[in-house]
């Protein structure tokens, strides 16, 4: 029987309070944003498969910082089986370290999300990351922002060849007159060096609530367009 109703296409699972007692299939689901601790929770592994999520094309997996040591997963990305079918993937920089082999063949479709100052931009870019997002830089003190931009500019300036294609920033960091003057200079410097190296700076509103998806709408739509132009593969 055909259901007259729309079907669940977007699912966000934040925080850690879940189990899955019986395998299910979410046949229409296209986008899943899930905290890493939940990915490792009892039974959830059975959900992260092409059989259970046949139409998922966007996956956001972050929240590694929430994990206690004993919950740290094996070297494999828990949703590794889904990777071949994804058009866009958002992962936290820490995850790249944990399961580099899973991500390396898919840098073109992976947006690496990072907390400024908490990860090594050189290492991630050297590993081949093509798309970076700094999360809510506006929450940080100006001194940390300044340092983060200084490091990022250094990466853009010195890495040759550089595989970075885009950097996603919050719109509040546009170099307008309300921005802290020192930060504004840094953003302008980054814009200049990025342009010289053919790297696009994308300003996109970032999530501000815990219940909001980690998936970048802009990245997702660009990737969908690329996939479409490439013939849907």
């Amino acid at each position, binding site marked *: 029987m055909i259901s007259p109703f729309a079907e669940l296409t977007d699912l966000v699972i934040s925080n850690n309070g879940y189990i899955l007692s019986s395998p299910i*299939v979410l*046949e229409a689901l296209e986008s899943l944003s899930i905290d890493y601790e939940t990915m490792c929770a009892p039974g959830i592994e059975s959900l992260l498969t092409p059989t259970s999520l046949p139409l998922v094309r966007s996956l956001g997996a972050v929240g590694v910082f929430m994990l206690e040591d004993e919950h740290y997963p094996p070297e494999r990305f828990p949703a590794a089986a889904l990777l071949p079918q994804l058009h866009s993937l958002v992962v936290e920089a820490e995850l790249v370290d944990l399961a580099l082999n899973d991500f390396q063949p898919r840098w073109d479709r992976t947006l690496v999300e990072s907390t400024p100052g908490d990860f090594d931009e050189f290492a991630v870019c050297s590993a081949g990351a093509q798309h970076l997002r700094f999360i809510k830089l506006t929450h940080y003190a100006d001194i940390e922002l300044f340092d983060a931009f200084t490091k990022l500019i250094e990466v853009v300036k010195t890495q040759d060849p550089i595989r970075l294609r885009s950097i996603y920033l919050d719109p509040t960091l546009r170099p307008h007159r309300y921005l802290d003057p020192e930060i504004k200079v840094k953003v302008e410097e980054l814009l200049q060096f990025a342009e010289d190296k053919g790297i696009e700076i994308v300003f996109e509103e970032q999530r501000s*609530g815990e219940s909001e998806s980690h998936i970048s709408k802009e990245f997702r739509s660009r990737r969908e367009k690329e996939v479409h132009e490439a013939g849907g593969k």
Partner: protein
Amino acid sequence: MRTTLPLFSALPNELLRQIVESSIPSTFHSTTYKQRQSTLCSFCLVSRRFRDIAQPHLLQIVWIKSPEQLEQVVDRLDSTERKDLVCEVVLRALPTACYEAAPLERFARHGGNVRSLALNVPYFEGYSKRVDLSFLQLLPSTSVYFLPRSQLSQLT
């Protein structure tokens, strides 16, 4: 004193609908949700025509913050014939809240048009209870179902 709005009475419903829909965000955001619902309530008080257009939007996005609210929403859906109005649901919990399986399952059975679902449930040992995601199977759609036994072995 009752205010009359002759301008609005001359406008077709399609334009009134555009006025309402352009005044509110079309998707959930924690910072705008309260204002969205308040704007819709204000529209409902303008006139019967505005109410007919604005009222369905009140149920379009539902933000549930506690098990008690979940019960209220399910009761509300029980009493309405327009269960298909709910499109987007955000369900969150305080660290000590426990969402029991029964109301979640009741809710899922009513989730006739839910396209987007966001869950935010923390777990603290001894204080809260984990939510079993298998309630998603009960969403009224052909798309969610238990796997046949023959396929279960492939997943484990």
